[in-house]
């Protein structure tokens, strides 16, 4: 049967259906896909039944506060079985087709497009006929509105950076404290020890965080340890075998918490930037994507034997940014 339409829609003897396509179940297109429809029906019914039971089972599991795993199994089986049953129904028990429909060109004729274009242009001309200055004001209004609407959308979000990236809270004489706020005495760390420290009064600060390591401790029988010089000009920065570096990785800002004591290196866990530390080695990146050494905090031992900073870091800590020079 083709799709030819007879405009005669009244049924008569010659055209009992009014010339409109009517399919009967003998048509091969109307046959179900399954070669054994009764079997397919039974399987589909079984799947749907399992689905129903699964749904109900979930209700029971929920009611008795069953474990997450029982919840998953019950409702999961319910949904999956039910879904496969429905799909099997649609695939095996319904007319297999295949059916066809015609595509129709999307585009209209060139004449239609011309008419549309003419409508836009001509009516536009009506609007702006000898009123060019109005059009200019329209454009100006749109531009100014666009600019000022950006103010609450963007500027109100937060503060401007100003100089906040250039300094931390470390100052001369500020003691190093651990996460509990206890100051660090120079006898506290063993040789090869590591500790996360903050400036006193700013425990937990994201940009102040500093990694204190002790690559060199006192020799057996001694109480004092030799200082460590990482670079020329930093002779006093590493007293008693201690070194302090910014814990904020110069690559993407992750805390550089991994101290490889035996190889005297700091490894950043995020992208595996590796920094050499020790005598003559001011946390220079030797591997991985970090571009700059970790800034070193100049240390000193105050009168009571506690470690303190000599000053702030000599450069901005953390990853690079445009204004960093």
């Amino acid at each position: 049967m083709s799709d030819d339409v007879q405009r005669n829609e009244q049924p008569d003897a010659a055209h009992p259906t009014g010339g409109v396509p009517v399919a009967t179940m003998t048509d091969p297109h109307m046959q179900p896909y399954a070669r054994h429809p009764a079997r397919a029906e039974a399987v589909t019914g079984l799947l749907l039944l399992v689905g129903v039971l699964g749904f109900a089972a979930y209700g029971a599991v929920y009611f008795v506060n069953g474990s997450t795993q029982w919840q998953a199994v019950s409702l999961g089986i319910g949904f999956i079985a039910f879904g496969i049953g429905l799909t099997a129904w649609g695939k095996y028990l319904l007319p297999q087709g295949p059916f066809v429909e015609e595509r129709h060109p999307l585009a209209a004729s060139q004449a239609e497009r011309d008419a549309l274009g003419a409508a836009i242009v001509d009516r536009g001309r009506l609007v702006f006929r000898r009123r060019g200055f109005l059009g200019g004001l329209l454009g100006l209004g749109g531009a100014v509105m666009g600019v000022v609407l950006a103010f609450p959308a963007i500027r109100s979000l937060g503060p401007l950076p100003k100089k906040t990236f250039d300094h931390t809270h470390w100052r001369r004489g500020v003691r190093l404290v651990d996460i509990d706020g206890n100051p660090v005495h120079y006898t506290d760390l063993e040789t090869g020890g590591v500790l996360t420290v903050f400036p006193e009064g700013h425990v937990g600060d994201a940009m102040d965080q500093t990694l204190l390591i002790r690559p060199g401790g006192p020799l057996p029988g001694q109480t004092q340890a030799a200082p460590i010089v990482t670079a020329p000009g930093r002779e006093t920065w590493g007293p008693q075998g201690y070194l302090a570096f910014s814990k904020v990785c110069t690559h993407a800002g992750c805390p550089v918490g991994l101290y490889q004591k035996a190889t005297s290196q700091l490894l950043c866990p995020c992208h595996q930037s590796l920094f050499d530390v020790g005598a003559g080695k001011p946390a220079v990146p030797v591997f991985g994507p970090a571009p700059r050494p970790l800034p070193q905090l100049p240390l000193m031992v105050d009168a009571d034997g506690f470690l303190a900073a000599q000053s702030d870091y000599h450069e901005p800590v953390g990853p690079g940014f445009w204004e960093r020079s």
Partner: protein
Amino acid sequence: MSAATATPATREGATQRRSPTRLSTGLDGTLRWLDERLGLAKGGRTFLDKIFPDHWSFLLGEIALYSFIVLVATGVFLTLYFDPSSKEVVYHGAYAPLRGIRMSAAYASTVDLSFAVRSGLVIRQMHHWAADVFLGAIAVHMCRIFFTGAFRRPRELNWMVGVTLLTLGIVNGFLGYSLPDDLISGTGIRIAYSIILSIPLVGSYLATLTFGGQFPGNGSIIPRMFIAHVLIIPAIIAALIGAHLGLLVRQKHTQFAGKGRTEHNVVGIPAYPNFALKTQGFMFVITGVLWAMGGLAQINPIWQFGPYEAYKISYAVQPDWYMGWLDGALRIMPSWEFVGFGHTIPFEIFLPAVLFPGLTFTLFYAWPFIERRITGDRAEHNLLDRPRDRPRRTAIGAGALAFYFMLFCASSTDVLANFFDVSLNLVLWSFRVLVVVVPVVVALLTYRICKDMAGLSGVGKRKRPVVVRRSATGAYMTEPAAPRPGDGHEEPEPEPVPTFVQLDEEEPEPPGVRRVARRV
């Protein structure tokens, strides 16, 4: 057409029977009510007859669609329990090892959702698995569109809508798994801050504006991520999915070449009842698989990670899989930073995390036009290519896939080094080489394979088995086996969808029932 109903003429001996073709009063009344207000009778019947080609690879987009529906449904549930606040609280909830620890309200509410809300953990994990599957389905769907050339005229617009959906999906996924403010995802947010910071000229402004100051900001990042994740981006995604499906319905689906299939028709199954039933079943299956995964396979066990603190870090920290290509790019990038003229451009971040994805998505958007320029093919295409018939496009696509896959693997350098017991340094250097070499090799191999396949007939088609019989006298004979449905061997010629179906042979057509042909 008037709505007058002719009275059934009496025939001798005819018993008063219900006509199977008379509509029930209920349905008739409803349809009239809707038709008078929406005018949907004509369009409705056209839609019910709409033909959907039924190849299995056309269902990949449906996986994404139904995963999205699961995401919205489970997401609504989660919003009823999640507290999008960075305010510090002390935990006193159901999970003992965290009691007494200070954490953000966001993290605490997520832990409590996982342990103190019935079915909360299943739904939370189902939501996370659905996100992974959503983006995985988009990826395979996009590959199908690409390798079969379905993005060609008139479907370039739909391709671009699809690329936008991919981008938004990736962003929303990142925002979503960062909401619980646990140690691992918080590290990702820290890296995101540094990425924003790395943008020349405006980076520091954008960073402090978005976060409310120097990292970690004034705490507003969590509520901002929340509203972007549950409202702004899903609304755009939903609208774009509507456009995506609308374009599909308007332009009709593409199809592979075959019996009775031309550039000017569509062959397949009608929307109602075949497609409706199958797609509904598929939706239940997807929901079931995601629900089962949600309770059987643990994902993002944030109670084991602890809350995020800016000075704490864990090793083996990877982002979710769809961000892996960016993390891999960050790891293998050499440390090229430009310092000069009083300014710094940190290319070691800016290039892999900003410029590279920008270039990637620009290329994705532009591909239909690039291919059109290269091949000079400006015709409309409704029949799909077999990938082997377009060896250059297939090779380029395979090479691109290999490239992104190498980057994705590069995100696990430390895990791979540990698992295979090789040096971390060696693994990193290997990836720097592999990322260049492997795509080229894959592209060349693919081109070769396509060329070889195109030369052979019947490649990829299921072979018809041969049945060997033996006669009583001992002679062997062979005959082809009975055809199986779906082989395409014994398919009838496609027919238009019949407007009416006469289910029962014995029932003659009652006179006077109005039948109306569809206005073409």
